[in-house]
């Protein structure tokens, strides 16, 4: 069953010097209980997309298109309804948010807060729920009395996940939940997220620039470049056999240890990410594309079929089909 549907979503920030088209026509669907990965380099619009889903964007951002959550139009919701959705149906774990924990409050109190504020539980029940949530994220009960500085980065990220789970949401949006954590802690957090999705029938949108991490956790993968989805499909297929040259570069950036092809041969992508205020014409990727054709600077690209369940916005894909 479809839980979330984005139809031609666009977000434009208005700033003093002009307009920043951060998301430019994204259409995606997410089934309930499924996990969707959104990949792309910094500035490609991933966080903007995530915030748009729960209408958390600054007021000067203009949003176009449609967002349907359980068939309900998110952009048309009244504020009261929107707030109810935010705590009961979908919650977001922000990029770097573990630094945003209140340093002078015990973490148990911070986890219990939404339950108490929304009147979902009395103090006693909230305390029991905190214990349960801590257990779900693999932290011992006594950690409820700790202050944030007494926890490691990975433990703080677990607390953030516990907070996101507090009101039993059906959808979790995790923006770079493991970036800057070390490998073992990253593995702990990813295992936790995977188990939650599998055991509690929670849907997940996970954002990262590391395709290998997304391929590991998510069923479907969308690769964004300059505010658009340039490739979409089953995550392992996209990771191992990318069709779009940009996805290929992203996939190659994290080598498989043991693969002779990447030994002493790091793979990069030349050039700079595009400035959204001065997007290249034609295919936005053409100035950095190693396989660009003459027409790429002028022709319009769109997501073309690229095999069963797959799409890619590249002229080479269109020619092949």
């Amino acid at each position: 069953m479809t839980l979330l549907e984005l139809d031609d979503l666009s977000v434009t920030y208005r700033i003093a010097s002009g307009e920043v088209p951060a998301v430019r026509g994204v259409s995606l669907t997410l089934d309930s209980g499924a996990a969707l990965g959104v990949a792309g380099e910094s500035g490609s619009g991933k966080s903007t997309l995530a915030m748009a889903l729960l209408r958390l964007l600054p007021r000067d951002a203009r949003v176009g298109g449609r967002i349907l959550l359980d068939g309900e139009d998110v952009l048309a919701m009244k504020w009261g309804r929107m707030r109810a959705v935010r705590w009961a149906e979908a919650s977001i774990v922000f990029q770097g948010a573990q630094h945003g924990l209140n340093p002078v409050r015990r973490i148990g109190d911070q986890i219990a807060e939404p339950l108490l504020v929304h009147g979902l539980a009395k103090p006693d029940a909230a305390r029991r729920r905190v214990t349960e949530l801590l257990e779900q994220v693999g932290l011992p009960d006594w950690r409820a009395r700790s202050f944030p500085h007494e926890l490691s980065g990975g433990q703080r990220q677990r607390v953030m996940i516990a907070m996101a789970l507090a009101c039993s949401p059906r959808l979790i949006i995790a923006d770079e939940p493991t970036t800057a954590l070390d490998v073992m802690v990253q593995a702990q957090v990813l295992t936790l997220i995977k188990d939650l999705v599998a055991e509690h029938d929670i849907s997940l949108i996970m954002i990262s620039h590391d395709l290998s991490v997304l391929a590991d956790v998510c069923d479907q993968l969308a690769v964004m470049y300059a505010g658009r989805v340039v490739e979409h499909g089953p995550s392992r297929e996209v990771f191992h056999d990318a069709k779009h040259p940009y996805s290929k570069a992203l996939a190659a950036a994290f080598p498989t240890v043991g693969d002779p092809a990447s030994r002493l041969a790091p793979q990069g992508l030349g050039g700079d990410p595009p400035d959204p205020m001065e997007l290249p014409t034609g295919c936005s990727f053409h100035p950095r594309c190693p396989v660009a054709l003459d027409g790429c600077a002028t022709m319009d690209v769109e997501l073309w079929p690229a095999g069963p369940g797959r799409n890619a916005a590249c002229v080479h894909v269109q020619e092949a089909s």
Partner: protein
Amino acid sequence: MTETQAATEAVSTVRPTLLEARDLHVEFASRGRRARAVDGVNLAVGEGEIVALVGESGCGKTTLARTLLGLERPTSGEVRYGGAALDYSSKALKAYRRQVQLVLQDPTGSLNPRHTVYEALAEGPRIHGLPDEREVVATALSRAGLRPPDRFFLRYPHELSGGQRQRVVIAGALALNPKVLVADEPVASLDASVRGEILALLLKLREELGLSALVVTHDLGLAWNIADRVAVMYLGRIVESGPVEQVLTAPRHPYTQALMSVLPESPERVVLTGEPPDPTRIPGGCRFHARCQVLASGRAAEAGVDGKCRSELLDILPAVPETQAACHYAAR
């Protein structure tokens, strides 16, 4: 002559040791206790060699790197450069810092937002009184792949992309013509697409300038991408080291095996649980025993080494190039 000496000499004809830690200990006072952040490390970086130092957060990598740079004084043991123990007089240290340069983790944090690229890069050559400042800065920029260099002179950090900022930081390190770069997580804060470019730059600098590097990271893929040798650190000590091809395809220490197993797409994961290890409470016996999956699964007992795991200290690994692991089970 012992076998170890023979091995060191055999390799030294290929790559003479340039920078070395000998039985290095670095301790800090932490909440009234002693934190043994570096607890007995032997490590050598040869001329033109790239060594990766890997291990989880808090295991002592940065402390070891800072001590090698002379920024931290060892509690005992010594840092040696070019065959001589490091001299901590300020004059000698100043000369040393020309040879061994630090590249920091976060390019945004290590650049002053109010200094242009030129000002940032001219500082080192000025302090060291190098002639032809402009030339030095231009050469460093183009070596770091920022060409033509004069196009970048007057830019401020916020006018550069993350990858360009990291190149400026590397150019700053190159300006003094060092022999060794010590890079602490050089790509951790960079995008996937830029990461490969910066790593390729480090390889190119080795090829063209014969530069050596110690790259500190928790990213095993990075070690696979650019390092000749890898040293795996756990709780202040190197627990396994050797050529990258061997250590990363056939890890022998259970900790290295666990690190490898959590790479995406590994068949069987060993996710270590428990609190991160605490250098103020280093366990007796093997320092990894409380988290060791080989001990926990009973394999160590089957091999009859479980008693040793819990109570017998392991020798500090010597600085030899061959594969070695500090583990009773691996040694049996």
